[in-house]
């Protein structure tokens, strides 16, 4: 099974399974990654699914939409160049092993 590794803000690594076609947020909420709240359920409206993408993976993700870009400005934790909304990262086979860092807060 392909996987995504979430790294909590305290450094703990938590690998989870992910399936083709679901978002990284959906994989996370299905498997109880506490650091992802996803209040809007993946509709790109809440910015509570914020992640910092591991530098090695950043360029391999599809570009972000204007909506995602605007929303990230309102994220609770600092926005960094590698900030993304995990509900907008659609998982595919070529993302097997993706590493996402969790911010220290989503609210």
């Amino acid at each position: 099974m392909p996987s995504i590794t979430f790294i909590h803000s305290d450094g703990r690594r938590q690998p989870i399974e992910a399936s083709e076609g679901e978002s990284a947020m959906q994989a996370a909420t299905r498997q109880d990654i506490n650091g992802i709240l996803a209040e809007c359920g993946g509709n790109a409206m809440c910015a509570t699914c914020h992640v910092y993408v591991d530098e090695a993976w950043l360029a391999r993700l599809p570009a972000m939409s204007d909506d995602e870009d605007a929303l990230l400005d309102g994220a609770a934790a600092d926005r960094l160049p590698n900030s993304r909304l995990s509900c907008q990262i659609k998982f595919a086979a070529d993302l097997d092993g993706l590493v996402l860092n969790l911010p220290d807060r989503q609210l």
Partner: protein
Amino acid sequence: MSATSRTDSVTPERGAPAGVPSLDVDPFSNEFFEDPHAIHDTLREAGPLVWLDKWGVYGVARYAEVHAVLNDPLTFCSSRGVGLSDFAKEKPWRPQSIILEADPPAHTRTRTVLAQVLSPTAMKGVREHFTAMAAAKVDELLARGSFDAVADLAEAYPLSVFPDAMGLKQEGRENLLPYASLVFNSFGPPNQLRQEAIERSAPHQAYVAAQCQRENLAPGGFGACVHARADAGDITPEEAPLLVRSLLSAGLDTTVNGIGAAVYCLARFPDQLARLRSDPTLARNAFEEAIRYESPVQTFFRTTTREVELAGHRIGEGEKVLMFLGAANRDPRRWENPDSYDVTRRTSGHVGFGSGIHMCVGQLLARVEGEVMLAAIARKVASIQITGPVKRRYNNTLRGLESLPITISPA
């Protein structure tokens, strides 16, 4: 089950389509409003798609189908109205909403404007004040001890923050709740609730139309922010008042019923109040779970733009489909122990705010109000007792109470 006879109903053009279970329930009757849960269960168990004979419309009550309809806005459109009335056949009772009752691409433009006016960044600007007002309200209510949680809390708190945040004048605010109640009744069928609301609507409509104009909206408020977007060229000057109208229609009575739902839950389930008190950071989730559990916005319609297959049945073009958000939010296929209120539940994915492109554009504001109020209760209130008869308020779309007499004690 409804005992209503067929004589007072709108004559459906034809009966149930072959294979679709037909039900004789009226989701817009007082009997339904009093206790929707058993009937929701009947609707869910009858099948993924049902036919509601009384009004000649399709219905979906399971989570999967409600979610699917919400997320296919080109097939299940909003521009023909999100109530029973089909705007292709009947003139809307007021000029059509340019966001709620619009489809892409028109919807995309207006939606972008309101999403920015009510963005996470905008919420940072109101949060502190809303928090202070919630704390003051709870202190005042603790001093009184006994009061009506609907009028004195669920209505009073949003009324103390939302109209000011919009930038409304003081005069005439008493029109806001009657106007919203009218709007939400109007999505229903032509029953007494809808007809009486529309008959009495003239003064409320006149008030709201005037408040949507730029000169009546204080600088810095959400209303003025909408008008500023007309200067920027994102919307026309004629569109700005209509978008302000959307905020006035949907921004107050919804949070009243959301906060009312949360207080009613905490009053009925003391173990959950105790859990919340032991960890006030659960306040935001306790509010969200109340939205799932009670679904203050119970239903919306869509209209099919083409023939479409849904759950194995073919639906023709121009058919109304009623989505039972409240039933989806308690569908055992989606939720564990759906009928229990659990402040620690992972609520993500509930459809109490809708889903897809029309998902509530004011959800962040609703959550700020709900969270800061429940956080104030968590820190200051030790117990909530229901002390008198609980009365339900009847509305074609909104679920909430008319009266909830309670006594609270200080922590």
